[in-house]
């Protein structure tokens, strides 16, 4: 199981444009993508904009993204990069 931590840098948090970009990239991945706050709580589906919005990640909060399977490391790098882009 691959894992990346990323601190959300966008002023709006993981909402609007960052959320849409994140989910669009996650949708292209063949494997399940799970996202949780580093502080805990149930992981949500990284391919669902509704669930990502519900997770309500604010600027400065850190998320843990997990994925498993061929190409997971690349996908995780991309997603972590999107989440940490201001």
């Amino acid at each position, binding site marked *: 199981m691959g894992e990346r931590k990323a601190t959300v840098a966008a002023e*709006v948090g993981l909402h609007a*444009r960052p959320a*849409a*970009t994140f989910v669009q990239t996650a949708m292209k991945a063949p494997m399940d993508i799970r996202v949780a706050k580093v502080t805990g709580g149930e992981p949500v589906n990284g391919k*669902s904009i*509704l669930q990502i*919005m*519900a997770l*309500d990640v604010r600027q400065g909060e850190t998320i843990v993204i997990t994925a498993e399977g061929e190409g997971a490391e690349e996908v995780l790098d991309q997603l972590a990069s999107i989440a940490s882009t201001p």
Partner: protein
Amino acid sequence: MTTVLAPVEGAAVGLAAVPDPVFSAGMVGPGTAIDPLRGPGKAVAPIAGKIMKLHPHAYVIVGDDGKGVLVHLGIDTVQLKGKGFQLLAAEGDRVSAGQPVVSWDPAAVEAGGRSPVCPVVALDAVAGAVTDVARGAVHAGDELFRWT
């Protein structure tokens, strides 16, 4: 099937008319947008359900079937940090379709140099799931589109 109502009065112009590619390219999801009537008004719930997220400038209502509809009041309005918006409900509230959620003034948003156009988006909807999209004049509470 979910019938999604117009949250504000104005002209249904389609997502392509939204001056923000995150909406106009359908990145958030399918739906439409309303160019709102200028002047003080109340934005209402587009469907019955629970208010999952409530920001002054945007809200998400999730129906009992799990479908979520996003209403965004103007573009880049997050920058206003709530100024000019008044919440008429609270996050977690259950609302009926057509119930007022936020009062605001599209004319004031426009006067501040921002577009007051309101995207109404079916979250996680697949392409083709949104049909019967209204065009032209709508009142708040009129049928805006159907989501199958």
